[in-house]
């Protein structure tokens, strides 16, 4: 049962992206379809010609890779500004020296360059496959890691910036940085938890005290996702399914518990997906 649910879940999550792609493809082909409908006479089109109609417009590339955040130039500019903000924040929190600032700027710029070099490599690959339906599927597999990176930011775990940060800060600076980082992550996490409980409320019809207790139960666990990104909401749902039944029984009604079990049965299947995307295992706050 679980494996079926896992497959369904994964299919849903991945299909969401693929459907988006299809939507854009459909739009790209919309003009041709409309023209065909307007024409009264429909000619038989040879099979070879039909196969050649698989054409993906160039502008779709940015949409897929950057996910509606803008084009490469705009995002690069935004990353540049974010790097400045990151270093300013460190300066405020830890009082870093000029040498440390330079090292961090250099590392951050390295991350941005490396990322956009990789995007350009991918763009070249796209040019080769955009008219070939079979090869396009392979290309699509390569797009997904970029979507994760652009969703989670350029200076996350594994980046040059992150490594330089760990090697550059003194233990005292590091402690200050980590305290502020924890606070930020706790805020991000709480906002996600409140949104998930709010969404759940739409089918469970919680009372205010029940909503607040559920939020507190999750937040008090102090277990955060390893990475923050667009699938945080799924992670919180998964975490909810891991709560002890006894604790829920203390404040939820029997019918609510039964309905919650239906949700839990499904979201437990998210685990492999969340692991493979870096959200699990959780980290202690």
């Amino acid at each position, binding site marked *: 049962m679980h494996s079926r649910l896992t497959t369904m879940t994964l299919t*849903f999550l991945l299909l*969401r992206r693929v*459907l*988006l792609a*299809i*939507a854009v493809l*459909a*739009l790209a082909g919309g003009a041709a379809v409309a023209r065909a409908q307007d024409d009264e006479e429909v000619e038989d089109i040879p099979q070879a010609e039909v196969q050649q109609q698989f054409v993906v417009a160039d502008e779709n590339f940015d949409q897929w890779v950057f*996910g*509606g*955040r*803008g084009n490469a130039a*705009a995002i690069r*500019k*935004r990353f540049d*500004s*974010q790097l*400045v*903000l*990151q270093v*300013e*924040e460190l300066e*405020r929190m830890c009082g870093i020296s000029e040498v440390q600032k330079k090292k961090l700027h250099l590392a951050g710029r390295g991350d941005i360059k490396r990322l956009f070099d990789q995007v350009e490599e991918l763009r070249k690959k796209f040019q080769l496959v955009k008219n070939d339906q079979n090869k396009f599927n392979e290309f699509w597999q390569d797009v997904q890691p970029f979507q994760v990176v652009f969703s989670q*930011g350029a200076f996350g775990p594994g980046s040059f910036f992150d490594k330089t940060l760990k090697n550059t800060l003194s233990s005292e600076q590091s402690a200050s940085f980590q305290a*502020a980082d924890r*606070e*930020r992550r706790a*805020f*991000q996490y*709480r*906002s*996600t938890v*409140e*949104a998930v*409980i*709010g*969404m*759940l*409320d*739409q*089918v*469970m*019809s*919680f*009372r*205010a005290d029940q*909503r607040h207790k559920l939020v507190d139960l999750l937040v008090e666990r102090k277990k955060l996702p390893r990475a*923050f*990104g*667009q699938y945080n*909401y799924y992670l919180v749902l998964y975490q909810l399914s891991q709560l002890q039944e006894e604790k829920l029984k203390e404040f939820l*009604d*029997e*019918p*609510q518990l*039964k*309905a919650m079990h*239906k*949700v839990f049965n*499904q979201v437990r299947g998210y685990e492999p997906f969340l692991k493979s995307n870096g959200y699990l295992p959780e980290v202690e706050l």
Partner: protein
Amino acid sequence: MLFVLLLLCHFALAQEKKRTAENPPPQKQDAKNEKPAAPAEKKLEPKVIQRKLRARTDLTTEKLPLQEVVKKLSEFHEIPIRLDKEALKKANVALDAPVTVNIQNYTLSAALKHILKDFGLHFGVVDGAVVISNMPPEPEEQAVVADVAVVEEARVVQQMGVNEAQQLQQTPQYQALLRAELNFAKHACQATPEQMQALRDELDHANKNQQNQNQPQPNAGARNRVVVRRQAVQGQAGDPLQLARNQLAGAVKKCLSAEQAARFQEELDQRTADGRRSAALNLVARLDREMILSATQRDQITESLLAHWNDAWCSSLQMFMYNDQFFPAIPDAHVVKFLNETQKKIWVTIPKNQGQMFFNGFMGGIFGEEVLWNEDEDAPVKQKEVKTEQ
């Protein structure tokens, strides 16, 4: 799939807008010596008037005289619109009564209604022109205006991607939502079993009335669809959750004591407050990811958003889950004053979404059509008992 449909519709609308902006309506090419008739003097065929009343309109005015506003609309849409001066006198509305509006992507018909309603004025089609007066249009004219309204709403629905099939699919989900809401009322109001039965009876009664009202009548099919769809567009009663909650709120007022109804209302108010807080926190979390806010900035912006909260900023929490770039068109004044110079540069690059999405099912339907709530603690037992007695 609904998400994709909405996306398609949103994109298509954006493209249409773009095309319109790039290709403004052609100016009339009249003969050189022939003075073109002023729009207000022209006469148009009823079909042409209908078409023009459906055209899209953006209009922003700040205390502009009413007759100037009418002239603007008339010239822009090349349609004769006349003010019935005598009727305006009777209604005590001056020709230069100030009009302040900000409307985007309305049809001309909707724009006129919006502008005129504050003055208690109406418009109708008379002798090939749109005439503004203090009298509602004659039945025949009203049909023309109503037809236009029907098409308007259908267009909006098309943009929202809500179709008949989805409306039908909502039925079991709706029943499940209603069961959950009944449970909510039971505990929030500490209702007795008799009161719960009264609530169920009242809801059944309301549903039957609703069904009767929705029975197709001659020449009214399109209008019925529009009623349902208009509700969906507004995210109000067409949204099964909102419909269930509204119906229950009505039933609670009728069937429970004033004290219980007050407790119920308190819970609803808290639910609204929690929803807004949750949306505000998620918006600030998005800004934080983009702009590396300080803890103080996070608090300040959250407080500012909540103090000036507008429900249109976030019609549904699912927006956050399904669109990790979602950020509504929040006025700069509520955010920018808390940002530093580098953050301000990022703020202007964040795309601000104007569109609304309509989500079907829990978390946008990730559980498909599964009905999550089958339990109604009392009702099934009581029904069985009645059957046994019979």
